[in-house]
């Protein structure tokens, strides 16, 4: 009993004395616990059962839970190695003073138990304290109608968290024991003073890293098809991660070695010390720096894309579905509009609305011909639907339809046309359609309710011509093999007096009757498609998917950020301890304090900002790929993505700078101790 108390007190003292090391780690471990608990709790929240699309969010959160748990294991395991390396010296001393290894193991056990207990206590405590706020925030983001009842302690989540983190701590303890077991007292005492092998440049590895990165960048730049982008994205991410690690570990040393070979450059006071010690530092910290770089990039990609989806898609929804209900019928362009089907569909809608007890308001819509093709130098060439830099959609509307929809009274000569654009800022005086004709253009800033959801994938030019049927006839003659590269669509949009549930029910009723009565006769050859959309249903689907993504993005960003900060902190701390000795030697050999400060400042700054710069570079090359991916989600606004990404990068840079300032202060404190 007395003995147990002794080991306990030794462990407690050890943790307390090394607070500079243990406290940040404890905070990080608690943070991970907190985050895991929150995500586990939220993924099981009752609120998700009352939200439309709640299941999507549940899947997303479960995914996030998996990511956090894997990340926690790797991260806590990795950083604890740093902690234990510093403690081994102390254990060596105890060993020399006569404490047996079994005793040391008991001290370690108490330490690990204390760390585990504290992290679980703090993490779960805070998690339980803020879980309601997190749930309400999620409800707000997902536009939950109903605030569900709340039970403060969610037992399954608590159990899951406790089990995961106890496993992590058990792993950590086993690893510490193994380190302890295979070393003698003298080994332990000397753990830190092991002579470091000078870094040798591994040119071939550095070359491989560069080639991998170039390949990854090339893939990112050459993929233009949004669907392909989604497929290739994850492979490309893995390629970039590998390349980053190789480059930071081998490439940076090779670079320093290369600089050393240039004697005139190297033997200058400013470069001499920084280049040689950077070669050393990079070798040891390359992996850490690469991790920081990857984490930075992940945070930036997650935040900017999810944020962009949320902002951009909201806008998109308003444009795509300006009315409560949105009906569209599309025929193959060779087939043309089936006026009979259009008339009976309209009748059907009015009947069903009457049945539901509402009239139709704000009725609008019309006919539009949607053509796919490429646009280059003011000439549109019809083609199959492909995705490249020149892919465009040309929507052709007759002047009569345009005037009817907008209530205007525009007049046009046969060679004149009005035009509008979406997803592009294309502005020209003239537009030609290959083999069909050319029009003098006038820009009008109208939004016509004539967009299918697919329209958001491509830049769209809507052309209002005096004789749309004439244009189509010429087109058919010019392209006899008319195939699915274009559609003749009819849109019908309207508001009702119903509430959201009523709107969704009305859509369902219309759709059911349409399928039953009209679908079969509309077109038998399969070149017919239809869509019945209720904005209310769409919006809640949208909120649950993109709101869920954003929420998850923010949660994961917080976790990754905390990890980044801790890695940076440990780097500064360990480098401070290492440099303390070097400082005093250099001072004795005749280096002034100012010179030392300058040189160290330059090194620390370089080492510190290399990951951020690299992350920036990754972002630049990832940008086209992310853009394509977002296009697959239906978001083609590159300007918005650029803006959001830039803003995220600046915000992140500011935060990074703050962490740098705070930790370099600690660094100077350590080195000036000597």
């Amino acid at each position, binding site marked *: 009993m007395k003995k147990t108390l002794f080991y306990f007190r030794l462990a407690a003292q050890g943790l307390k004395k090394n607070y500079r090391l243990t406290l940040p780690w404890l905070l990080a471990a608690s943070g991970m616990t907190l985050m895991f608990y929150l995500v586990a709790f939220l993924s099981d929240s009752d609120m998700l059962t009352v939200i439309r699309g709640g299941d999507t969010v549940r899947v997303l959160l479960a995914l996030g839970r998996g990511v956090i748990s894997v990340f926690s294991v790797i991260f806590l395991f990795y950083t604890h190695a740093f902690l234990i390396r510093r403690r081994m010296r102390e254990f060596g001393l105890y060993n020399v003073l006569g404490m047996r290894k079994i005793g040391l193991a008991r001290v370690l056990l108490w330490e690990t138990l204390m760390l585990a207990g504290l992290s679980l206590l703090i993490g779960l405590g805070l998690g339980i304290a803020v879980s309601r706020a997190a749930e309400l925030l999620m409800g707000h983001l997902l536009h939950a109608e109903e605030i569900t009842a709340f039970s403060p302690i969610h037992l399954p989540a608590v159990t899951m968290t406790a089990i995961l983190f106890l496993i992590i701590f058990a792993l950590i303890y086993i690893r510490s024991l193994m380190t302890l077991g295979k070393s003698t007292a003298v080994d332990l005492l000397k753990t830190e003073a092991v002579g470091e092998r000078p870094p040798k440049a591994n040119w071939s590895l550095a070359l491989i890293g560069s080639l991998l990165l170039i390949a990854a960048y090339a893939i990112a730049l050459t993929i233009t098809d949004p669907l392909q982008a989604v497929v290739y994205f994850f492979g490309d991410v893995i390629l970039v991660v590998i390349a980053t690690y190789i480059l930071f570990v081998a490439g940076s040393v090779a670079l320093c070695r290369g600089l050393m070979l240039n004697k005139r450059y190297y033997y200058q006071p400013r470069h001499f010390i920084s280049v040689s010690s950077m070669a050393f530092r990079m070798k040891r910290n390359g992996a850490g720096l690469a991790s920081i770089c990857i984490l930075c990039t992940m945070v930036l990609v997650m935040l900017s894309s999810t944020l962009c989806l949320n902002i951009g898609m909201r806008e998109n929804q308003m444009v795509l579905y300006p009315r409560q209900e949105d009906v569209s019928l599309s025929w193959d362009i060779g087939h043309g509009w089936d006026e009979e089907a259009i008339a009976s569909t309209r009748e059907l809608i009015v009947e069903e609305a009457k049945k539901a007890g509402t009239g139709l308001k704000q009725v609008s819509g019309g006919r539009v011909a949607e053509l796919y093709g490429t646009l280059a130098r003011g000439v549109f060439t019809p083609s199959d639907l492909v995705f490249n830099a020149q892919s465009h959609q040309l929507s052709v509307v007759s002047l009569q339809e345009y005037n009817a929809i907008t209530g205007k009274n525009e007049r046009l000569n046969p060679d004149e046309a009005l035009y509008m654009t979406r997803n592009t800022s294309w502005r020209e005086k003239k537009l030609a359609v290959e083999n069909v004709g050319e029009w003098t253009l006038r820009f009008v800033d109208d939004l016509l309710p004539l967009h299918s959801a697919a329209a958001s994938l491509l830049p769209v030019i809507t052309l209002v011509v005096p004789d749309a049927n004439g244009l189509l006839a010429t087109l058919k003659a010019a392209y006899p093999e008319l195939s699915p590269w274009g559609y003749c669509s009819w849109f019908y949009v309207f508001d009702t007096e119903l509430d959201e549930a009523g709107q969704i029910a009305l859509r369902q009723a219309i759709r059911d009757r349409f399928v039953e009565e009209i679908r079969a006769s509309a077109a038998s050859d399969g070149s017919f498609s239809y869509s019945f959309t209720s904005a209310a249903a769409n919006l809640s689907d949208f909120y649950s998917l993109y709101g869920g993504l954003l929420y998850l993005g923010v949660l994961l960003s917080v976790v990754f950020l905390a990890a980044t900060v801790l890695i940076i902190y440990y780097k500064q701390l360990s480098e401070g301890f290492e440099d303390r000795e070097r400082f005093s030697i250099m001072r004795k050999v*005749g280096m002034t304090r100012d010179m030392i400060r300058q040189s160290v400042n330059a090194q620390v700054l370089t080492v510190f900002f290399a990951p951020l710069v690299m992350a920036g570079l990754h972002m630049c090359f990832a940008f086209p790929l992310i853009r394509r991916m977002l296009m697959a989600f239906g978001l083609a606004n590159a300007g918005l993505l650029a803006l959001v990404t830039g803003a995220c990068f600046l915000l992140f840079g500011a935060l990074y700078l703050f962490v740098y300032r705070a930790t370099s202060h600690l660094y100077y404190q350590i080195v000036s101790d000597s």
Partner: protein
Amino acid sequence: MALLEAQNLKKVYTPRFGGQSVQALTDVSFTVEEGEYVAVMGESGSGKSPLLNILAALDRPTAGRVLLDGVDLNLIKDNVIADFRRDHLGFVFQDFNLLDTFSVRDNIFLPLVLAGRDSREMEKRLRPLARRLRIEELLDHYPYEVSGGQKQRAAIARALITEPRLVLADEPTGALDSRASDELLSVFSEINREGQTIMMVTHSARAASRAGRVLFIKDGKVFHQLFRGADDYDRMYERIHDTLILLPSGGDPA
């Protein structure tokens, strides 16, 4: 004029937060002539290290002054004292103080690089020095790859490459085995014969016996000094030994 002149040096350490102040040096005066080889002996706590720190301009005396070539070290401004040290003094330390991030060559170049010398000149100065110290083959190795004696010879090369007026050595044999110590002392004797002024702090009688003159320090004062005269190393060793035996009793050794 003497190369180095210490006049009535006194050093008192006062703890920052009150407490008992410690008098490390009471009153130390001596001179070193150009080309001399002087050893300073004394027990732990006798004030050897504070004295060396003051001579090296790493620390300032509480009272008294040090003149190097007639220049008062007290009057040199803080911001140029490192330059002064680099240009006029060479250091050899007990634990070598080589930087593990540099190759042996770059460790030796360090003071010259800091002084902003041309890399060809550095190479020119290094060649004869490396030959004399027998470290030519080690130049591209890293400190952790070479033996203690080799490290210390590299450190001597670093001290000599600036062609200093005075070499200050602090227990240079302290971390070496007896063979490496003998080798090192031969190197010192050799460079002294070529005209290099050396001042060495040591508590090894064997090391001190190589010097031309031995100063004994006790309780912060120069207690006694021995001149070699015509004696050989063994005779000198005996005389130092006899003096050391008398030292603790405080008797007059003469």
